[in-house]
């Protein structure tokens, strides 16, 4: 049975802060930080935005783009590191906001930055088994980075949602696989506001090992090579890691550029590779082939081999593309950013 993406939607908040503005506060060299991270600015959620509001906006875009009856959605799964409730699901609020349900299943998902792609895999399984007709799979975050920590320069906000089904598919998912191990490169303990990380340990044994192993295994199983793909999207914690990983794997800059967003909006954590895929779907032509590999600390990668279908042109322009959200922006200074991100308490 063919399973794939029936529709997609994305959302990025309008606010930005420049890396230069953050560096100024901590006495760091802005040029060195920008060059080191490959990020110029990042998105910031408005005071009244969180992962739920981002999930709703992206889901509404996905629903507007499709002709799917919301009552036919049988599963709602959102991956995030910033679900606003520790106990009470994000999925129930999103489903109510798109007028789906009540005949659906949901659970909040968390696996650092890859819970959204895991949601796609679960929806694929439910559709293939015949348990549901359509599943809503999203990756959304208002990412946390402690003031003064390296993550503060990159932790951003945004997300993308995919409707997974078997009818009217715009992108066929040919194959998916995962590569997972117990690698503690980045974590957040219960009741902690900000995550901790292993610094340089987040590189070779973590990001690169999982991204490269998952991608190589996919190409080995399918008998493909980088030249068989028109686009490739790799998780984007900063601008350097995905560029280096793609070069090691043999992909060109042209293949990764359309889905490469981190330099403009930062690392949207669970939204990162999902937004990259959404940006590719905004421009991909029928029969083109896409490879996507996510990465979640802790650690694992999900890899997808996707072929665009003829249906994509019918629904592509029904809602604004990711690029419109990226271009629509208002800058904050660090004082406003502190107010927005609750660096201080109200009296």
């Amino acid at each position, binding site marked *: 049975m063919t399973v794939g993406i029936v529709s997609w939607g994305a959302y990025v908040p*309008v*606010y930005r802060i420049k890396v230069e503005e953050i560096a100024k506060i901590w006495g760091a060299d802005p040029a060195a930080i920008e060059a080191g991270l490959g990020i110029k600015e990042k998105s910031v959620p*408005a*005071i*009244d*935005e*969180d992962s*739920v*509001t981002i999930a*709703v*906006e992206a889901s*509404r875009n996905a629903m507007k783009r499709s002709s799917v009856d919301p009552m036919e959605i049988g599963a709602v799964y959102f991956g995030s590191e910033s679900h*606003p*409730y520790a106990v009470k699901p994000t999925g129930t*609020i999103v489903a*109510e*906001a798109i*007028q789906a349900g009540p005949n659906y299943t949901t659970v909040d998902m968390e696996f650092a930055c890859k819970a959204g792609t895991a949601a796609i895999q679960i929806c694929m399984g439910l559709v293939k088994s015949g348990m549901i007709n359509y599943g809503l799979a999203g990756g959304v975050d208002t990412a946390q980075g402690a003031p003064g920590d390296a993550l503060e320069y990159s932790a951003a906000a945004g997300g993308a949602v995919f409707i997974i089904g078997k009818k009217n598919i715009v992108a066929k998912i040919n194959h998916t696989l995962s590569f997972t191990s117990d690698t503690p490169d980045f974590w957040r303990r219960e009741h902690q506001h900000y995550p901790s990380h292993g610094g340089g340990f987040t590189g070779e044994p973590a990001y690169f090992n999982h991204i490269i192993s998952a991608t190589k295994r996919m190409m080995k199983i399918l008998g493909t090579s980088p030249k068989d793909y028109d686009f490739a999207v790799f998780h984007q914690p900063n601008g350097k890691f995905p560029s280096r990983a793609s070069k090691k794997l043999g992909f060109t800059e042209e293949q990764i550029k359309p889905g490469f967003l981190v330099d403009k909006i930062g690392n949207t954590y669970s939204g990162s590779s999902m937004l990259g895929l959404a940006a590719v779907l905004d421009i991909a032509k029928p029969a083109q082939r896409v490879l996507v590999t996510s990465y979640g600390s802790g650690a694992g990668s999900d890899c997808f081999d996707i072929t665009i279908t003829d249906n994509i042109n019918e629904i592509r322009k029904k809602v604004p593309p990711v690029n419109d959200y990226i271009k629509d922006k*208002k800058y904050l200074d660090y004082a406003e950013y502190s*107010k927005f991100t*609750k660096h201080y*308490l*109200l*009296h």
Partner: protein
Amino acid sequence: MTVPRIWRKIPQYYNLIGKKCQKCNSLYFPPRDVCTHCGEINLQNYKLEGNGEIITFTVIRTPMPDPEGEIIDIPGRQIPYIIAIIKLDQGPCLTSEIVDCSPGEVKIGKKVKSVFRKIVEKGPRGVIQYGCKFKLI
């Protein structure tokens, strides 16, 4: 607002579900049980589109204190914030917040569209109330 009341208002807060009179087609938001034009009691749920125009607005610089003494993160942290009366394209008027802009950008007659945001968030323990606000087009 109590949790049961927040729960009852989810359709109107999330999706602008108002009422339509089945006799004279008058639209109402917030929903009501009796048509004020013709007295009809057969009113059905009706989803209003989220597009409209600013009729008037004010800028809140000192938010109301919470009667229960809780710190109100939202809207308290948003000051100064903009509250407007919006006439929806389908007719009904409602009061809502205008977001993602400064007070100087808001003008009477400007077009707006609905967005999904947090409406009230009290401290770290309370339930979060979500719903529609509006932003300039």
